[in-house]
């Protein structure tokens, strides 16, 4: 019951935030809309007992990434008189068609009751999926340690690469 109410509330705010990102004239409001969406999704993670994922979502996306976005927006000072030309021909038309098809599909699934399309949550939650730090750390550092370390290496390389690209740009040619 509580979970249902929470889901409806957070789904509405997540969608409202997502719409704000696209509709808002001022880029700062777009950033705040995205922040609202990220936050609502984090609450949904908590409802799914994934506390760790929720905390990381707020720290990394809402805390670090969005702060940088706002920083850039405020520093560069995007004006409302900016270039608003749409370079992709007919982009609104095709996006409208795509969105319409997805909405119709979702409505069709709901009305016909063929819920095999959307697999339901497991009946009983196994103990291991209760998202405590310990439950996440154990598989991460035993079964998946190679993939985990490889990802870490990849991120380090990409960060170093970004710095190198920015730093040595002027010296080439």
């Amino acid at each position, binding site marked *: 019951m509580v979970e249902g109410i929470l889901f409806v509330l957070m789904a509405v705010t997540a969608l409202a935030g997502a719409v704000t990102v696209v509709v808002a004239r*001022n880029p*700062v*409001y777009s950033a*705040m809309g995205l*922040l609202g969406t990220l936050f609502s999704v984090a609450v949904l993670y908590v409802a799914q007992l994934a*506390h*760790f994922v*929720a*905390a*990381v979502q*707020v*720290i990394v996306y*809402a*805390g*670090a990434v969005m*702060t*940088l976005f*706002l*920083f850039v927006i*405020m*520093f560069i000072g995007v004006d409302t008189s900016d270039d608003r030309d749409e370079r992709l021909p007919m982009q609104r038309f095709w996006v409208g068609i795509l969105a319409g098809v997805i909405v119709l599909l979702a409505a069709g699934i709901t009305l016909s009751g063929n819920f095999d399309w959307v697999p339901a949550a497991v009946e009983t939650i196994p103990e291991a999926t209760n998202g*405590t*730090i*310990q439950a996440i*750390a154990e598989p991460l550092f035993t079964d998946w340690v190679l993939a985990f370390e490889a990802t870490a290496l990849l991120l380090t390389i990409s960060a170093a690469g970004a710095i190198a690209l920015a730093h040595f740009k002027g010296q080439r040619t």
Partner: protein
Amino acid sequence: MSWPEFWIVVLRVILTFGLLLVVTILNVWAERKILAKMQSRIGPSRAGPYGILQTLADGMKLFFKESITPRKVELGMYVLAPFLAVIPAFLIFMMVPWGRPFMIGDHEVTLQGADLNVGLLFILAMSSMAVYAVILAGWSSGSTYPLIGGVRATAQAISYEAAMGLAMVAVVMFSATQGDGGTLSLAEIVERQSGTWGDLSPALQPVLQFVPRWNVFPQIVAFVIFFIAIVAETNRAPFDLVEAEQEIVGGFHTEYSGIRFAMFFLAEYINIFSMSAIAATLFLGGWNGPTFDGVLPGFVSAVLPTIYFLAKTYFLVFLFFWLRATLPRLRYDQLMQLGWKRLIPGALGWLIVSTLVISFRQFGPPWS
């Protein structure tokens, strides 16, 4: 959840909230009084004994003053920003255990807003949320000085959050060796700091048995880095470039007045207290201390841990005030250099050293 458990949760949230409000009101007064003493002034002295009611009087005044809204503000964000400052400030303190758990009947009451499994991460998340209030206030005011304050706040928060997080990692790793596996729950971290270092070495036992088992002794470098980082995170002197009066008037809150300004003011003092409380919890053993169970009456032993917690926290809060009275403000380039060239490399280096020592003690030398 049964009804008694529900009421216990409500009770402890209200207690935590109430404690935070009372100490914050006292903090504002204490800062003015302590700064006055350090500068050979008298400080607030009219409202109540020793001027202790000064904050209440100021609060009432701000509450009844007009909240002026300048014409050029972005109204939505301008109104939202003070709330965004206060909410994370309150939520951070909800994670801090401020007293020993006790029993009412057969229900355990923990004196803590909530004990999350990811408590420490929650604190990091909320402290990174707090910066939005400053950025948005600065931007939405539609004025140059607040905007400069907001931009400074963003750069400062990003720089010092990294050092703060790295110092926390070192403590968590050390704390993992003190019990059964690692933990991010603050209640658990406090439990692991009970007792003394007496069992560390038989030779030094007579001395070490009087040294409490706090994380600050093995993790002193992490403590210093953490403390500098939280002073910068709360935008306090000497890191108060965000609201440097001589350069940018009032910084991000220049255009705020009345109750909206009061909310920013309140958030700043709540943050000082709750960040000090977190430092006391992580490094100074939280509510641990001699409680003389059985010697003193039961209720005294139950209240003593809370007093120890407040004493440790107030020691750190006093350091905040002391810094403000002593140090001049850093220049902007000095601020960035201290953050990126001293604190972050220092925290990384300390993390490596502390990891090596922990592994060495646990697994023996690698060549054996």
